[in-house]
């Protein structure tokens, strides 16, 4: 026997499994809706119970079920004509158009001494949302600039305190400790602010994560990483993404995540190979410093001490190894994480197909950084549009069931301070890597 939550948000039941199957065929329930088995306390998606799982489809070579949703629909079910093919994510932004919006943003931000930055952020995000189309509909960005302004002011004060206290190590350490304890809170607030202010087809997204869970994956687990020589890093990353994705909802429907620790180990392992030259360079630098120290000890007063500029030259030489290797490694990591994240995320049966290629991202990001640096930042909008286009082109959506059937959830408003903090301190929390 089960208790279910109906379209109207009320509890129904207890009812039998057969009754639920009947309701599903009558389209009164969708597999995305919540149910609880009698005697248990946990609410789960109906589709997550073995009784109502779609008949096990043959597993494809890649370990994923085949894409044809028709195979998972019960015969005779009154399911709508949902598109069976993977649907593209269409990005329609144009850089000349965005350039004009961006430059007005920058100009007004300067003229208003930074106050307009909040409005600028809303216009920027609105532009990218309005130009991203999924299943024929664009996204809405609904944030209130005044809230972002408050967030910016608070975070600006925190940043100033941290920057100034850097000169007083003890105070700085105390502030840093306080800030670290607060960081998981900033993270959940940032995720919630962005999710709740993004909507598609009139329904808002939401993020339901709480401080406790956030502190576990963003504070306590990372603290253990150094003791394992970094070996724990993929495990922690998996826990973080699991936390972030599973607490996102669209309307009342929660996202699912099934990325395994093994998959994370694979991405981190290959990324490590790219960083080998960087590690070698650091060991080289340490060896260089030790040699220096020994020579000055031995040589006494007679030895010619190395000049600061020769040290600088050594540093520049290292830049030619460290910077390119780091840059290439980061792009590999970003492309693979993008695919890992989206390919393992789902929304009540709706799945995502991500196929970002490392070399495409490397080419786009390299030319982006080069052109932005050469134009003193003026072609930043061009770079932003290219990155967004690549991400959209790399993603497809495989709908399951009727995309018209998602239902709204009750929501409360949330302040923007976490979002501002995220912009400023750049926590690595993005849904889409």
């Amino acid at each position, binding site marked *: 026997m089960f208790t279910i939550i109906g379209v109207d948000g009320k509890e129904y039941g207890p009812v039998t499994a057969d009754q639920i199957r009947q309701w599903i065929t009558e389209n009164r329930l969708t597999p995305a809706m919540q149910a609880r088995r009698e005697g248990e306390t946990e609410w789960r998606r109906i589709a997550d119970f073995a009784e109502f799982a779609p008949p096990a489809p043959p597993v494809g070579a890649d370990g994923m079920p085949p894409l044809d949703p028709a195979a998972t629909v019960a015969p005779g079910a009154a399911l709508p004509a949902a598109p069976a093919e993977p649907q593209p994510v269409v990005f*329609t*932004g*144009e850089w000349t*158009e965005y350039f*004009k*919006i961006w*430059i*007005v943003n*920058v*100009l007004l*931000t300067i003229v208003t001494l930074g106050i307009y930055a909040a409005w600028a*952020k809303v*216009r*920027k995000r609105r*532009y990218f949302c*309005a*130009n991203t189309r999924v299943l*024929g*509909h*664009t996204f*809405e960005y609904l944030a209130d600039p005044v809230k972002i302004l408050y967030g910016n002011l608070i975070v600006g004060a925190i*940043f100033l305190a941290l*920057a100034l206290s*850097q*000169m*007083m*190590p003890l105070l700085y350490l105390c502030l840093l400790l306080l800030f670290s304890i607060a960081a998981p809170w900033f993270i959940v607030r940032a995720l919630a602010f962005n999710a709740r202010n993004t909507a598609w*087809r*009139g*329904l808002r997204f939401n993020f339901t994560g709480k401080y406790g869970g956030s502190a576990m994956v963003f504070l306590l687990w990372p603290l253990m990483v150094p003791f394992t020589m970094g070996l724990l890093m993929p495990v922690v990353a998996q826990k973080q993404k699991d936390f972030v994705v599973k607490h996102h909802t669209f*309307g009342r429907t929660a996202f699912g995540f099934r990325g395994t620790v093994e998959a994370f180990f694979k991405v981190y392992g290959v990324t490590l190979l790219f960083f080998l030259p960087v590690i070698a360079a650091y060991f080289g630098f340490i060896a260089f410093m030790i040699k220096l*120290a020994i020579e*000055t000890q031995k040589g006494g*007063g007679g030895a*010619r*001490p*190395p*000049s*600061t*500029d*020769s040290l*600088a*030259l050594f540093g*520049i030489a290292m830049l030619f190894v460290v*910077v390119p290797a*780091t840059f290439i490694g980061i792009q590999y990591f970003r492309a693979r994480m993008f695919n890992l994240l989206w390919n393992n995320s789902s929304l009540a049966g709706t799945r995502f197909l991500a196929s970002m290629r490392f070399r495409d991202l490397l080419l786009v990001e390299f030319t982006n*950084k080069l052109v*932005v*640096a050469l134009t*003193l*930042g003026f072609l*930043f909008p061009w770079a932003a549009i290219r990155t967004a286009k690549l991400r959209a082109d790399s993603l497809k959506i495989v709908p399951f069931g009727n*995309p*018209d*059937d*998602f*239902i*709204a959830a009750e929501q409360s408003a949330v302040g923007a301070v976490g979002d501002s903090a995220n912009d*400023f301190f*750049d926590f690595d929390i993005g849904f889409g890597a």
Partner: protein
Amino acid sequence: MTDIPATYFDGRTSRPHAVTLRWHALDGVLEVAGEEVALRLARRDVTVESRLGRGPRFIRFADGGRCEVADNDTLDAVIATWAPQHGGNWLHRLETSWRLVAVAVVVLGAAMWAAIHHGLPWGAKKVAFMLPAEFTRVLGDQTLEALDRAMLAPTTLTHERQIKLRADFAAFLQAAGDTTPYQIEFRALKGQGANAFALPSGTIVISDELVLLAEDDREIVAVLAHECAHVRHRHVLRAVLQNSAVVVAFALVTGDASSTAAFGGAVPTWLLQSKFSREFEREADADAVEKLRAAGLDPAHLATMLGRLSSAHGDDKLALPEYARSHPPTQERINAIKGAR
């Protein structure tokens, strides 16, 4: 009355409805009509999103429903008569004018130049001199403590030698009329060679190697005069303030904090910071010349010492271009000192 096609969402489900919007100007009613939708909304329950690029716009209703409208021009024309209080699309007009963009590029370029050359140094100077003395004292003490642990060793100079140098320095200060409470610290610099540097607290650290390198004690006083200038002008504080301002400004303009630290921003930031540092060195040289002259000492001693330091370090053998150096080329500094009459 104009009809505009739109897509209606009730805000409770993700189902789209094709509708027609009818705007009744006289009674201020918006009629939303479709196959399963029939709504009449009062003007005060309707909010129209501002226009942005070519993208569709949302018209939101007080009950959580909304309409997505693609035809921006028609919508603007209707709104102008139906709800004039919504205001014009002045922001959109700014954002679509190439002429304005051209002006903005020029203004921004000029503003960037002015901020880097004048605004930032001016602001950092103001703030640096506003910070209380207690702050600079703590800052200097803690820095020296950290340096002592990392790269400084106790001096090997004899007690008599130290007393002689301190006395020379005190005589110079008195003659130059400088009453700032400086404090001289002698240290051996592990592997760094001849050097001297000033901390914000007024502490000046001078390395044994520098004392040995000098052939005349007046040369040491000349170097100290240069470091005194760094202290009085609060160069260390100003450098910290300017450098962090550059990082923040870069992040603000590009809207991207991570790349500042990583790739695109690191080089320009570093070049700017070197430029600020060179300007401080020039300012300290000029100030030292003035004070030395006031104390009746020949500023040429500073030039001599710079020459000695340069050949001891072998600096100018490296063809590092000027924009990448933290100090101006030694020859240029020597010429400037000798040329200051």
